[in-house]
């Protein structure tokens, strides 16, 4: 299957890229450093370990999604490698999907390594490991897939630098959409409609954040989890569809 071939090729490209290893090493160092910080806290050190650990997994995965994501397509266009792909019997959307899943595989492998590091720290400090931790990590992957789709969409119509700025902006706003809604409710007329429109249009990335649940040992019921996963998948699919439509019309000059 062509999508899979392109995905595996993208994964291989990522594996041979130094950026990825730098980020991974930093992430593992951060997770490890929580052991030192733990000595500075009074009590609640379980919470600190989980907070820093999950935070590191989240931040570094998102960084990979954004900075590798923006280059997925634009690098192929800049280096003209795309000419040889698109002139083969490969549909443009197949190329985009291949790139998307390639980075998803990369993220998955990275997260497995980071999670292993986190678990090692937790086990060493005999912190109880609960199911909600894995749910939280799963949702971080889903969040990264949405962020990747945003980066991919941006890179189909603009430069790598602008894509990075747009994607970062959407990531930040995506975590503050609840505030947009609250703010909108305090306004009336046009302002209210605009802010509410933005609330529904932008990805609500806060939905994928279960870090509070993990540190406070509150499990998430399955039906709620299914809803969140469906929301993430649908949102990413919508972005990929939009990216395909734009990409299909594009001239490779």
């Amino acid at each position: 299957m062509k999508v899979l071939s392109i995905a595996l090729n993208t994964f291989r490209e990522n594996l041979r890229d130094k950026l990825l290893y730098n980020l991974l090493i930093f992430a593992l160092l951060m997770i490890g450093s929580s052991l030192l910080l733990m000595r500075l806290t009074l009590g609640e050190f379980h919470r600190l370990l989980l907070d820093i650990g999950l935070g590191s997994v989240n931040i570094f995965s998102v960084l990979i999604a954004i900075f590798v994501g923006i280059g997925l397509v634009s690098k192929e266009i800049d280096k003209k490698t795309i000419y040889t792909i698109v002139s083969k019997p490969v549909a443009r959307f197949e190329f985009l999907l291949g790139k998307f899943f390639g980075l998803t595989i990369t993220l998955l492998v990275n997260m497995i390594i980071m999670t292993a590091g986190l678990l090692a720290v937790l086990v060493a400090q005999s912190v109880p490991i609960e199911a909600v931790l894995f749910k939280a990590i799963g949702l971080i992957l889903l969040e990264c897939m949405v962020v990747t789709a945003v980066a991919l969409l941006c890179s189909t119509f603009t430069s790598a630098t602008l894509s990075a700025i747009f994607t970062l902006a959407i990531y930040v706003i995506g975590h503050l959409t609840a505030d947009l809604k609250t703010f909108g409710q305090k306004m009336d007329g046009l302002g209210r409609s605009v802010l509410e429109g933005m609330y529904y249009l932008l990805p609500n990335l806060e939905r994928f954040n279960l870090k509070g649940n993990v540190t406070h040992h509150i499990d998430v019921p399955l039906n709620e989890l299914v809803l969140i996963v469906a929301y993430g998948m649908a949102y990413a699919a919508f972005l990929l569809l939009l990216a395909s439509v734009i990409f299909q019309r594009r001239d490779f000059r």
Partner: protein
Amino acid sequence: MESTAETIVEAKNLTKVFRVGFWGRRVTAVDGLSLDVRRGEVFGFLGPNGAGKTTTIKMLMGLIYPTSGTASIFGYPIGAPQARAKLGFLPESPYFYDYLTGREFLRFYGHLFNLRGTTLEQRVDELLETVGMSHARDLQLRKFSKGMLQRVGIAQALINDPELVVLDEPMSGLDPIGRKEVRDLILRLKESGKTVMFSSHILHDAEMLCDRVAMIMKGRLVACGHVSELLAGSTTHEVEMVIDRLLPEALERIRPLAGKVVLQGERVMVVLASQQDVDQALDVIRSAKAKLVALTPHKASLEDLFIREANVIQSAKEAPVS
């Protein structure tokens, strides 16, 4: 001979207008271009840099969309998967996935044609052999020289055993040996029954290889046809003579016959325009006991045609001003 052959690439009035800059100024890169490539021939697509060769090829490959006009390959509209399955393409100054080794690189392209397993492995080894790159099969592409990249690039274009091979500037940036290898490869492809279309601004290569050529300037087709037909209209009978030990008084007898005389120490080079002049000059040389070193008839070349067409376009452009 090829006139009865099946047409496999056909472009009709292809036009591409780009919008450039902030204000979207319109620039016509290709203007109403029509051409056809027939089965089994080597077709040269010639023109100076910036003439619109690459833009035309990109339109044929479905990388950019024509503003107007149509084109078909194997009877399918451009971009159709059925046409792409029988097509191989090498882009201009290609950059490839430099983190892959030669073999991984070809394997990846094979997968895009759904080639798998031993069939694919055999094909990859065979192609690396064909382009003389077997020694670099496990070397990453980032360590390749330009000539090596060009060769795996050609191998990539042949992975699906295509009927039509389109090469955009396959010889640019290569040293004389590399150019000869690419020329030989094109001839081998022709021998094995494939159709080759290639673009070049190096006319000498085209003259040696092509059955038919199309010449494009400023986005417009200026000539298209068999090389011999195109040259028929611009034959010259100039002969270049190089003479040693020619005494000054003998030189004075030749000078009125010659169009051009160049003195290099003992050696004299003269250019003569007609057979009659050549005979007379030879008589002078014999009687003066000078030594004839070389006698070279000047053949009309595509280059002459090219320069003539360029001058026509230039003067047409300047005409309204004066």
